[in-house]
């Protein structure tokens, strides 16, 4: 019945940025995630949803090469167009990739920031790591990115300890974006924030992702966050993907029993 099916329209970039196949991670005899395959294209936001223990964070960490999978591989299309198997790259290459072409936004900003140095130094660190040695230029870039994430530039010399939770999270985002990454991993980026703060942050992320054309792998247990930010969604349970598709398709027409349970549990305001 699919004789008319064609490849996607020519207008979109046709090569995936990130491709995982057969990704499996065991913790002893417990399953973290099992046999997961996925592709992510430039500019695409993929939400991985599921409850605690569903394996979504394990999957995220395997994709981001922060965790070595028991089996399977993750390939990434580098800026020069070559496709590399992450776990066959040297650690040095991988770390360069992680601080240039990638970003990682932690749920708890303390995990992603240097709390003892100023906001400006937090944003400038990646630039210095890739060789920037002009103080004035580094500071100029830091100011620019603080503005982008709606932090007043006169806070540039303040420590993140003096920042509210929402500001810290925005600072963490700025710190990640300063090298113009193409792919950002986000682990519950709005978790633990007040609802009003969350809304502002979500909107900021939404705008940045659209303006910068970022590809994002977003882990969240909050379907409202996934609805607002993601184009595509994967539902995980027990370490495997039980349903995936367009975000509004999953939310409007959930098929699996567990997905239906999740969707029916969204609070209506």
């Amino acid at each position, binding site marked *: 019945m699919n004789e*008319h*099916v064609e490849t996607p*329209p020519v207008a979109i970039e046709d090569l995936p940025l990130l491709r995982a196949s057969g990704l499996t991670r065991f913790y002893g005899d417990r399953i973290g995630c099992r046999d997961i395959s996925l592709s992510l294209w430039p500019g695409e936001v993929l939400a991985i949803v599921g409850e605690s223990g569903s394996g979504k964070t394990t999957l995220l960490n395997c994709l981001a090469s922060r965790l070595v999978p028991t089996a399977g591989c993750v390939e990434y299309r580098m800026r020069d167009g070559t496709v590399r198997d992450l776990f066959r790259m040297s650690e040095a290459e991988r770390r360069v990739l992680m601080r240039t072409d990638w970003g990682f936004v932690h749920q708890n900003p303390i995990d992603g920031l240097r709390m003892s140095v100023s906001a400006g130094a937090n944003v400038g660190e990646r630039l210095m790591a890739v060789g920037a040695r002009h103080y004035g230029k580094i500071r100029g870039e830091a100011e620019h990115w603080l503005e982008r994430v709606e932090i007043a530039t006169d806070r540039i010399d303040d420590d993140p300890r003096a920042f509210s939770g929402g500001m810290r999270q925005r600072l963490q985002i700025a710190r990640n974006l300063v090298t113009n990454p193409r792919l950002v991993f986000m682990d519950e980026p709005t978790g633990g924030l007040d609802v009003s703060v969350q809304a502002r942050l979500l909107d900021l992320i939404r705008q940045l992702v659209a303006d910068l054309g970022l590809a994002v792998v977003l882990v969240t247990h909050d379907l409202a966050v996934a609805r607002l930010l993601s184009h595509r969604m994967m539902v995980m349970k027990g370490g495997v993907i039980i349903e995936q598709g367009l975000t509004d*398709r999953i939310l409007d027409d959930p098929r699996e029993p567990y997905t239906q349970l999740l969707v029916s549990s969204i609070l209506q305001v």
Partner: protein
Amino acid sequence: MPSRLILTDVGKSFVMHLRGGVTIPVISGVSFSIDAGECVVLGGPSGIGKSSILKMIYGNYGVEAGQIICACESGKLIDIASADARTIHALRRRTLGYVSQFLRVVPRVSALDVVAEPLAAQGASHEEARRRAAELLARLNLPEALWDLPPATFSGGEQQRVNIARGFITDHAILLLDEPTASLDAQNRAVVIDLIAEKKKAGVAMLGIFHDKDVREVVADRVIDVATFSRRSNAA
């Protein structure tokens, strides 16, 4: 005029796992096509599955049976029923537009930017997109004072006009209209009727649901009675 959208034997039911796995039939055997420059209206009593058909075409609902072929400007044919999420997403950006009854409000984004967004997503400059958005909002008589405000606090009618402007701003070749005039006054209804007429002239294929009989009679080239499609067999 060439066919833009061809549905063949499309069917859908819901399985409600939280209610003991009961299957709720929605519709089946849906077959029709829409040509470029044509506005086809789905008719029939409410609850018959008109919205479900729109949602299947737009990809919000999965399609259980049949195929929905969309003819892109490039000449490519895409079966929405079996296409992957990314294909549908690209299709929505370029080819397939949707005006729903209700605006899904995004916090903090101004009405003007809500309207401009789909055009900007197609690559138009920010200024150009906002200029076109302003034109449309003016045409739809949305007070200019509201343009820079997020629509969350707008009245139903105001929100709907924002939504209409957002749906009509692009030159999508196919437009799905889910009761776009439902809560509009006569003046703004007339504006929407004009907009639809302009789209027709531009060769856009439209499929709509209009409960308002007056509007339906003006815009519809053809009415398809959804009641003629059978429900799922197990409900019979």
